[in-house]
């Protein structure tokens, strides 16, 4: 484990009730740094918390915002639940898949964009909605999606999944 990571882990443990309570914040921090939850991060988390590697992996796998595979610098998450569906999410999903050339959960061949279809994002009054690196975009028509995509291509995002 790098000294910086160990120091961060110890700070998080001190701020929480115990080692395990700091596990998810620690994995979120590692994900922001490394781009996803790497095998090394899982090892480091086990070392810090005293949990087994298997326990850490099992816990990490439970949460949809912890990625145990490389993801793009841009993560696009399109809501598909009822209010968004009534507002045109099915058409948006079909468009986004075709535009990016991926299916649900896929990453573009250049590794830049990861695309996911997710459940209710709590923005049902502005359907259909999506999140790009956890930032909301509302009332997204297929044309608006294309515009956003061009904008994102020219952006250097701070982190796909910011920890703080």
């Amino acid at each position, binding site marked *: 484990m790098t000294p910086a990571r160990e120091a961060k882990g110890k700070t998080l443990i001190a701020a929480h009730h115990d080692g395990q309570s700091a596990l998810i914040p620690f994995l979120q921090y590692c994900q922001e740094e490394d781009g996803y939850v790497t095998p090394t991060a899982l090892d480091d988390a086990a070392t810090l918390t005293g949990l087994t590697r298997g326990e850490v992996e099992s816990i990490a796998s439970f949460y949809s915002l912890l990625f145990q595979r490389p993801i793009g610098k841009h993560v696009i998450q399109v809501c598909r639940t009822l209010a968004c569906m009534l507002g045109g999410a099915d058409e948006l999903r079909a468009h986004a898949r075709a535009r990016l050339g991926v299916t649900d959960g896929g990453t573009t061949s250049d590794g830049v964009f990861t695309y996911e279809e997710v459940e*209710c994002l709590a923005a*049902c*009054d502005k359907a259909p909605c999506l999140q790009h690196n956890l930032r909301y975009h509302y009332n997204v028509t297929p044309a608006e999606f294309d515009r956003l995509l061009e904008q994102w291509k020219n952006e250097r995002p701070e982190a796909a999944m910011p920890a703080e």
Partner: protein
Amino acid sequence: MTPFEPVLTKGLGELDLADIDVYESRGGFGALRKALRDLTPDAVVSEVSASNLRGRGGAGFPTGKKWSFLPKDGRPRYLVCNCDEAEPGTFKDRMLLEKTPLQIIEGLLISAYAIQAKEIIMYIRGEFLEGYRVFKNALDAVRSRGYVGQKIAGSDFSIDILLHRGAGAYICGEETALLNSVEGKRGEPRLKPPFPANAGLYGMPTVVNNVETVALVPYIMTRGAKWFASIGPEKSPGPKIVSVSGHVQRPGNYEIPLGISMRELIDEYAGGLRPGRRVKAIQPGGGSSAAIFEEDLDTGYDYESLAAKRTMLGSGAVVVMDDTACLVRSSMTLVRFFEKESCGQCTPCREGGQWVHRLVARLEAGEGTDADLRVLNTINTTITGTNLCPLGDSIMPFLSSVLTRFPDEFAAHVKLARCPLSAGSSESAA
């Protein structure tokens, strides 16, 4: 419109309510100072009990009663705030978090004083990055004014608020799953009893309250339980933020007095339907609730009236479907939600969700059979009531209610081998 003065959303859109100077200039933290100076913790609990405030997260349990269940055995107590809002159709807590974090913080501090908590944990849904940042800034400002930390506002009461970001899981909105998540475990619901009041966070007495619930507490302190209890029906009083979405002209969050009719809510607040459209189905209380229909529009929007219609107020999320909506597709969308979000502990939920989803997806794609319809009509009782937590029980209510009310629409999908509402073949993106 029924006369009513909103409290939680007053000034929203006009003022920066997340600014501590703005908040204090409008009387903010007056309720906290009053509670700490003039009231014993038990008196705060009594006042909240007398107000008849019912939890705004979904279950509608009386808040004062929940607080009074804590055993008086000297063990440390925790107050956990549930801001893991993810019930389909609900977007009120995210609005409160992003726009009015200070009334949440004040409500948390008064609630923690009432139950004499050792620590407050604020659990914020992982997707709510912006809300987390707004809340964190607000909390820093509150701390700098001495309302959080040691000897708050010159009293003997000391407490801090720990922020915990979720990491993506609807089920963590269930209170015991949420506690497991705070403890760094998989967010799987626990078997109850023991209830959190006895064995909650780290095995200690714990209260889990929803964001909107705690945000109401300061107003009960300053205006009194009688004011609160005088709004709306006797058993379901108070202001309530309702999230209205779907086929209405003005979707949004509306703070209403409980008890107004569904018709008033949809027509007066949410701007009614598009011209020439009629109500086909309404989900009145989130993705878990059974539908009501055009003939139910005069039903009061309150806990009892909706229970009498065999549905619920739940989290206060109203999704309106007009006569252009396919109820088979709507059902599939919701069943898929519960399938995806099942934690997998209980077999009826884990397996049932998958099978029902496949079956309804088949119908929606025009590939269903009469046998599928027969199975669908018998499946309810084999899932509902057989799970640890309410998620499994939420798979069937909407589907059953629309299947009962519109059996011909389901049958037509089999007979025509496509959706009868669309001219061409149905596009199934499942």
